[in-house]
């Protein structure tokens, strides 16, 4: 929960007044990429601790890789928005598309694991990623 709140506040701080939507979205992508990396390493540790099974870990990693691919698409989108002249609404459209990808029900189903504690840990990481995207989308204010 604290990680989720922190990432949301950090991403919001990147875009105060949002005079630089290109820089703000690039920083958000970077912070989200770091969270995905942490999530992958945490998943690996949960297997090592015997808290989740290898099959569960492969599913969770599948979701995190899916989120990583969505982040790659976000990068491509914001780069195009920048080279396209920073037209109003283009960065927000990128964030909206990213948010929709992350909330794909079929993909979210992959993060379910049997152990309650491990489930909370994984949910915290996934929520942090989602909160980061929602926050940058909101902070852009339509930019």
């Amino acid at each position, binding site marked *: 929960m*604290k990680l989720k709140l922190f*990432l949301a506040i*950090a991403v919001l701080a990147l875009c105060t007044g949002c005079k630089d939507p*290109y820089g703000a979205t690039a920083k958000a992508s970077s912070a989200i*990429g770091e*969270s995905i990396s942490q999530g992958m390493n945490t998943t690996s540790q949960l297997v090592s601790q015997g808290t989740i099974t290898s099959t569960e*870990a492969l599913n969770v990693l599948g979701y995190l890789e899916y989120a990583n691919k969505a*982040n790659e698409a976000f*990068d491509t989108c914001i780069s195009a928005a920048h080279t396209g002249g920073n037209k109003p609404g283009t960065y927000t459209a990128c964030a909206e598309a990213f948010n929709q990808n992350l909330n794909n029900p079929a993909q979210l189903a992959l993060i379910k694991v049997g152990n309650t504690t491990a489930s909370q840990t994984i949910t915290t990481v996934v929520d942090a990623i989602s909160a980061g995207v929602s926050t940058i989308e909101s902070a852009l204010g339509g930019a």
Partner: protein
Amino acid sequence: MNINIITNLVLQALSAVLNVIAEIKASSGLTSDQILAHAQSLNATNDQLYATLVAALKPPTPPTA
């Protein structure tokens, strides 16, 4: 709940927060283009990390006769 599991979870969460802080601080002196390039590099690193972890977790394929 086992105290070691709680300690590990707290340490992991703290580590994640510290890494995000480091990530934002590291990008503060860069241009937007450089930050985006860094983000893209992180994506590529994550792709590699995913491939490595999957390879380690998947059971070995039995040899064909």
